[in-house]
């Protein structure tokens, strides 16, 4: 029983992390039809923002040593600026191209960012310790103790989700953004400023990436210039199985991928466990064979078929 509770919390925390990632990708896809493979590298930049830029073996913390509130604000602000710059310097110039072209551009941007990090910080992994108190365990009942960070990830995810829903439902720009996500050209015909809606989507996506960078680095304690790539792949898969273009789908897909990964790790016998990711991808293929449009269908997507 204790083991089950621990696994459930672990699954929810993994799922939350993937849901946040998938949401960052889904937001941009919904308004721009861009699958942003550089999203993982935005997270990497958020991580490296914590330390002094140098290729020294031992990392010196800079922002990482700030007061926690200031630390969060600085890292998130830096990632938002990077996201906005990537829109104005790169994606804005290809936004009328096909989704395939934009996706390839995002790969190019991702590799460029990785190599910039490599140039400045060097290729060696660097240890960074932020929020050490969060990596401790907390006793939630007799015999069940979980990592505080797991609970924090779940809580942060739900706070962000609720904030995002309120933002999209209640605010003026939120309504315009939902309209643009459904039919970008029509929204512009009704007076929606396309450029500012897209810029806003990049800001939100950067905000999510910044927060994820903090959660991820707290968890791993290590920075590498390629750390965004493998998690990006899972975020992308989560958006695909959730249903591209649906934000609810992105969250559902994120949880599906996270939960399946953790459950497989828990139930697979030791020697097969190393093939866990392969099995996750196999399940993804099976889901997509059954529901090629993803788990959550939007009405607008339904009609286009």
């Amino acid at each position, binding site marked *: 029983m204790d083991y089950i509770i621990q696994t459930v919390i672990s699954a929810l925390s993994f799922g939350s992390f993937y849901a946040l990632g998938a949401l960052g990708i889904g937001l941009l896809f919904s308004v721009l039809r861009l699958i942003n493979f550089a999203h993982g590298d935005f997270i990497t930049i958020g991580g490296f923002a914590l330390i002094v830029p140098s290729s020294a073996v031992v990392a010196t913390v800079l922002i990482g040593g700030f007061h926690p509130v200031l630390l969060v604000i600085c890292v998130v602000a830096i990632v938002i600026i990077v996201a906005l710059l990537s829109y104005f310097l790169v994606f804005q110039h290809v936004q009328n191209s096909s989704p395939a072209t934009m996706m390839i551009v995002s790969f190019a941007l991702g590799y460029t960012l990785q190599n910039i990090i490599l140039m400045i910080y060097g290729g060696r992994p660097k240890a960074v310790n932020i929020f050490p108190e969060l990596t401790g365990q907390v006793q939630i009942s007799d015999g069940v103790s979980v990592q505080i960070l797991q609970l924090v990830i779940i809580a942060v995810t739900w706070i962000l989700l609720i904030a995002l829903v309120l933002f999209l439902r209640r605010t003026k720009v939120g309504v*315009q953004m939902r*309209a643009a996500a*459904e039919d970008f050209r029509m929204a512009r*015909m009704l*007076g929606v*400023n*396309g450029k500012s809606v897209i810029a806003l989507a990049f800001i939100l996506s950067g905000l999510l990436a910044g927060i994820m960078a903090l959660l991820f680095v707290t968890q791993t304690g290590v920075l590498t210039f390629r750390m965004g790539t493998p998690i990006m792949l899972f975020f992308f898969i989560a958006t695909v199985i959730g249903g591209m273009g649906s934000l609810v789908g992105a969250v559902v897909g994120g949880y599906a991928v996270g939960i399946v990964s953790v459950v497989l790790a828990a139930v697979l016998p030791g020697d097969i466990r190393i093939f866990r990711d392969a099995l996750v991808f196999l399940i993804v293929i099976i889901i997509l064979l059954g529901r090629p449009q993803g788990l959550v269908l939007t*009405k*607008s997507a339904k*009609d286009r078929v």
Partner: protein
Amino acid sequence: MKQRKKAPEGRSQADRACTEGARVAEQANGSGQTLEARQVSVSFEGLTAVNSVDETLHQGEILGLIGPNGAGKTTLVNAMTGFQLPAAGEVLLCGKVISSLSPHWIRRHGVARTFQAGRLFRDMPVSENVEVAAVSMGLSRKKAHAHAMELLEWLGLADRAEMPAGILPYTDERRVGIARALALSPQFVLLDEPAAGMSDLECDDIMQVVREIPERFGCGVLLIEHNMRVIMGVCARIHVLDSGKTIARGTPAEVQKNPVVINAYLGHS
């Protein structure tokens, strides 16, 4: 029958394209505010869809735009609303060239349109479909909602305001499209086949709606329609296109008798 309520009052406070100078000049000509297509041509990969068309839409009038299928009616409307960049010629709003400006700028400065296929935001409620237009032009969420409800009430859709737009019947979709276009009283509204596929009774209703627009919203209406009863019933002036060219213009009675128009519709005999 649906009871039609009083239309929302007050013109938009959004800044207008008409500068004082232009307005004075226009008034001197006795024409008021205008949306003008000047020698507009649009071509797609060598195929000329609209060929040097001139037309001026005045505030307060209802102008019919008719022609056989493929005559270039929708393409002309696309060009006049910033949806399509003309290959030649220009579009002027109160004397100011707007053809290369972005669609949202044009909408905010008072030129609105509807689409043949409703193109509603299907995942959003009917009321929000209208609110999008209103908040884009600067109203607060609360005011936008009130404004949307007034428009929907006028069009007899108030009871369906909270329904997802995706489940509305075809004819109601068209009405929501009109409500969306009329948010914040544009100066000009271009309606693309609002009565297509409607029964006679529904057509009567749409005709009534179109007739009320100039007076209630103070705007000029350009109406594309295949249903001749609707066109002849509401338009004071008609422009006939065939193969992208203007072939006739005049009052409904003149156009109906024009042999060139009859020929275009019925073919050579």
